[in-house]
């Protein structure tokens, strides 16, 4: 193993490869900042460029683009509340309020440090547990995935403030309902009302852009914040190198959540199909559940923990998703599916034999991924003060530009202008629910998990001949179900306990 790591290091540190990772990170950050163009599109766009390069350089360039695009997505989520990729949705919950309160630089710095920490811990775990984790991920069947998706839905509690639980549950159900539109797991069409635009279902990007970016921009105008208040935007964008520095208390506050979210994110990332999005939601939910009452109140209003946890989990999961790709040849996410395509085009066959037959390629991919993480931190931290200047753009320009980029983001994925009409309708409905104080994040969570939930439940029922016994007869499934029940019932019992002790 040591020999393999040394070969990987040697390959990654040649001047041409260092240049590749620099160029990749820069291009990735830029592409990732454009709503609609996330890591998947960024990597897909870069693949033709890498054809002329040798496999190692090509993969290093792609890794740089990947990490850059992930960071770029977080940047647009934090600065303009436009999470172009699903993995950055949870980042916007606290990142955007933090930027709005004049701490844009600090928010971007926390995102950069957390991503780096998540990537680092993920890479260490990857080095230590690759062979073991590959066998664990193989033991996960549909029933375990179904239980995991249900557990993911319990993260809904994290988005509900006082008296908001029912509304959050209701919005999760709306998200799950929207996820059933289009083709069902058996391939049949349902709830499309004969509309061909709905036959593939509603796209995630469309829903996230409509509910977050579009509704947010319209809400800014509605609340009379469309005209530029010079002193306010200047204050928000007034970021210098000093404001990027975290205080000792802030580091102390986020250190443990970063550690926990890294491990959680990595483990979720290892499971094929779970991926960075679920990891970021689970990371956010876990930290909110573990936070003290005082910290809990700050969630959704610019809490550093609320920003650090999903960012860390997201990056650790991205690293973890390489375990099934490299050891089993199973792409666990859309991004790793594109990576698999790139590896195959270089003549590299990922799978259980790669680790044994071609250790140099295996380790150079891992080393180059980590190198991308380091370069990103070195390259992007100094750029943060300049990136934050986006907030200084007068609102009468910024608002229409956000609307335009959101619409374009959706159009560039489907090249279908009819999707823009659907997006506009959903955006207006989302604005109405924003006005009515209904949380929209649970809807997105339900939507993301809905498809996978149904798919795995159906498969589990097929395997178990239509019986639901798998819920208690499979040990891993039963454990996840038990944890879900505990997570759901803990707030109820703690409330009863509090009331009882208050009466005494």
């Amino acid at each position: 193993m040591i020999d393999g790591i040394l070969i990987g290091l040697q390959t990654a540190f040649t001047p041409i490869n260092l240049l590749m990772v620099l160029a990749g990170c820069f291009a990735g950050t830029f592409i990732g900042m454009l709503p609609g163009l996330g890591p998947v599109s960024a990597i897909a766009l870069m693949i033709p460029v890498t054809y002329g390069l040798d496999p190692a350089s090509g993969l290093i360039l792609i890794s740089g683009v990947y990490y850059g695009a992930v960071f770029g997505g977080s940047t647009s989520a934090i600065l303009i509340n436009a999470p172009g990729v699903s993995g950055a949705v949870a980042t916007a919950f606290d990142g955007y309020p933090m930027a709005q309160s004049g701490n844009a630089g600090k928010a971007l710095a926390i995102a950069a440090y957390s991503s780096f920490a998540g990537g680092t811990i993920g890479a260490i775990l990857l080095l230590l547990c690759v062979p073991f984790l590959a066998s664990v991920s193989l033991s996960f069947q549909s029933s375990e995935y179904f239980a995991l998706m249900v557990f993911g839905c319990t993260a809904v509690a994290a988005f509900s403030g006082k008296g908001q639980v029912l509304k959050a549950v209701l919005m999760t159900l709306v998200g799950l309902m929207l996820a059933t539109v289009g083709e069902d797991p058996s391939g049949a069409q349902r709830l499309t009302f004969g509309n061909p635009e709905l036959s593939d279902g509603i796209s995630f990007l469309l829903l996230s852009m409509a509910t977050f970016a579009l509704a947010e921009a319209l809400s800014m105008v509605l609340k009379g914040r469309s005209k530029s208040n010079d002193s306010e935007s200047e204050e928000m964008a007034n970021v210098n190198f000093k404001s990027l520095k975290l205080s000792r208390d802030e580091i102390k506050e986020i250190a443990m959540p970063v550690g926990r979210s890294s491990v959680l994110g990595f483990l979720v990332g290892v499971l094929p199909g779970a991926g960075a999005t679920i990891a970021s939601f689970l990371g956010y939910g876990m930290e909110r559940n573990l936070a003290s009452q005082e910290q809990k109140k700050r969630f959704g209003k610019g809490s550093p923990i609320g920003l650090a946890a999903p960012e860390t989990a997201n990056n650790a999961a991205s690293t973890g998703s390489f375990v099934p790709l490299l050891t089993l040849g199973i792409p666990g996410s859309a991004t790793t599916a594109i990576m698999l395509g790139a590896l195959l085009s270089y003549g590299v066959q990922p799978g259980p034999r790669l680790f044994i037959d071609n250790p140099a390629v295996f380790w150079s991919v891992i080393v180059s991924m980590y190198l991308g993480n380091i370069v990103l931190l070195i390259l992007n931290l100094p750029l943060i003060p300049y990136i934050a200047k986006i907030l200084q753009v007068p609102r009468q320009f910024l608002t229409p530009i956000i609307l335009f980029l959101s619409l374009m983001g959706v159009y560039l994925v489907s090249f279908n202008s009819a999707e823009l009409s659907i997006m506009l309708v959903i955006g207006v409905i989302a604005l109405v629910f924003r006005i009515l104080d209904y949380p929209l994040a649970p809807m997105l969570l339900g939507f993301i998990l809905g498809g996978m939930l149904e798919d795995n439940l159906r498969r589990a029922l097929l395997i178990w001949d239509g019986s639901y016994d798998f819920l208690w007869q499979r040990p891993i499934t039963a454990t996840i179900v038990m944890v879900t029940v505990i997570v759901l019932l803990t707030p109820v019992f703690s409330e009863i306990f509090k009331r009882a002790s208050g009466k005494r």
Partner: protein
Amino acid sequence: MTNFFDNKDRVGAFLILAFSLFYLRSSLSIPVDSFDAEIGFTSKTLPIFLGSCALVISLLLLFISFFQSEGQSISKGARDYDWKPVLALILLMAAYVMLFNYLGFVLASALFLQSAFVLLGERRLLVSISVSLGLVLFLWLLLTHVFGLYLDGGTLYRVFVS
């Protein structure tokens, strides 16, 4: 009747209740595959379950809203809202979407941005035209020439070219 709709929770619950009823009604008419029926999980099993849950919870929320001592008034908050520019922007976006295929990416986008800038109070025409045209042309060049994506020139462009 005016008071009935002057509560945020109630109106929201009412809207979702209406949606759930419509969704449930549509779910009941989803065609079922005979093979799926054997395992007891068809295309409509989950939609019916979800629709029923949403129906019950929205009814519950609606019921609770009548006992809220402090109703979240819609009219109170709406008084400070700037409705006109929002409605104008929504109409502008609808026009942009409708004209997109006809005018093409560059023209439709530049017109949309320019109109939105003016609508939100930008009076420096030279600045706003430069920003709208500059941004659209930059994106067009980036997407078509750097990333090699195809962006439709629009029906109008094709009429003039041919």
